[in-house]
């Protein structure tokens, strides 16, 4: 039981998909112009994350190694389609607000990343708690980002007016530029409290966080090539 809780807890903060691993950036930036949209997107993503985790982990001994990525993609795309139709049928305003970003959950690196790095190697219970933790962390991050942008850009939170008429909305917060800048500052803010400054020479060569964590290692294993444990391939000189 404590193990399950540990798997759940890591997604909330230590390995938070958005702030630490920088996964699934498209929806994070695109739909967070209001807290409501952030919440809806977070829940839709969590649903797909959880369902695909259950299926991938159940089928992990049946799916042959060579075709596993293809199988995962089909499983994920199926659940995304279900989520999309559900939203369109039951919650049309939300479906309209999220627009094409619901189908784009298919290519959210977070989901394929967790399927490959975690669910395909762990039992159902562990995979479920991992997916729940990651999903909750992801949803929380989206609400925080959406909340900040909505308060500053519109003077409201969850569509409830917070700031009076004296407040001149910062329109830039609702624009694409505002999304990037808010997330950048937020990550800097979190780093300020969690990361200690490193010696100068080291920090110059340091790369953005997800080089070491999550995506890269995941992808390496995923495609079973580039065995040289992700030395930052792309930064190599290519004379």
């Amino acid at each position, binding site marked *: 039981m404590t193990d399950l809780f540990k798997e759940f807890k890591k997604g909330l903060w230590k390995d938070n998909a958005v702030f630490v691993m920088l996964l699934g950036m*498209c929806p994070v930036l695109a739909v967070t112009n209001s807290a409501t949209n952030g919440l809806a997107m977070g829940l839709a993503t969590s649903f797909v994350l959880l369902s695909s985790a259950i299926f991938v982990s159940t089928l992990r001994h049946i799916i042959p190694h060579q075709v596993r990525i293809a199988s995962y993609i089909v499983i994920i795309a199926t659940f995304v389609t279900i989520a999309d139709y559900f939203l369109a049928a039951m919650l049309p305003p939300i479906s309209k607000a999220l627009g*094409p970003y619901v189908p784009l959950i298919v*290519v959210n690196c977070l989901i394929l990343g967790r399927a490959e790095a975690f669910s395909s190697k762990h039992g159902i219970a562990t995979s479920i708690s991992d997916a729940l933790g990651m999903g909750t962390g992801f949803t929380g991050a989206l609400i925080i980002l959406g909340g900040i942008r909505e308060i500053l850009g519109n003077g409201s939170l969850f569509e409830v007016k917070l700031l009076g008429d004296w407040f001149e909305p910062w329109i830039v917060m609702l*624009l*694409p530029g505002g999304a990037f*800048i808010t997330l*950048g500052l937020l*990550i800097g803010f979190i780093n300020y409290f969690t990361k200690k400054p490193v010696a100068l020479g080291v920090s110059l060569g340091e790369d953005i966080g997800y080089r070491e964590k999550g995506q890269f290692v995941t992808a390496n294993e995923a495609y079973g090539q580039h065995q040289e444990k992700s030395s930052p*391939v792309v930064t190599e000189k290519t004379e």
Partner: protein
Amino acid sequence: MEIFIIFISASIVNNFVLTYFLGICPFLGVSNKIDSSFSLGLATTFVMVITAVASWLINHYILILFNVPFLEYVSFIIVIASMVQLVEMFVKKTSPVLYRALGIFLPLITTNCAILGLALFAVLRDYSFIQTIVFGIGAGVGFTLAIVVMAGIREELEMADIPYPLKGAGITLIVAGFLALAFMGFAGLISA
């Protein structure tokens, strides 16, 4: 004229990366050297164009013909994954240097939202076959432009004295924000 508008709109005014947030992963990940960014841009553009063609064919000759719109996402993602595999094999054979430089980002083009986004947008906007191809080229050019400009800035940034919490992801996102604001200057180019 319509074709020209689609091209300008996809490449500059509604730049995939900077206004639709599509293709952010490679945009933040690869964009620290101009040459590798440019190569990735070209590879992505190539995959975009063939995906645009393939998805148009699938949409018109399978999804609409047999009235199975619910298979849209599944079929598109399968097409994209196979196209990326083909391109990967092709690049590996023809240019090992490029293959090494792109490294893990080549297979990752599959999960580049820009590609699936392109296919979905083309269907959503009901583009004709020619329009879809132009849209694909425009989106690819836009992606390449954004990622190369970003790489140019980041090459300079490496030498800059940035507060430590912002190093890496933080400053990259903030720079991307200013780029996005700058690109807003192009809006209005295509108005009625």
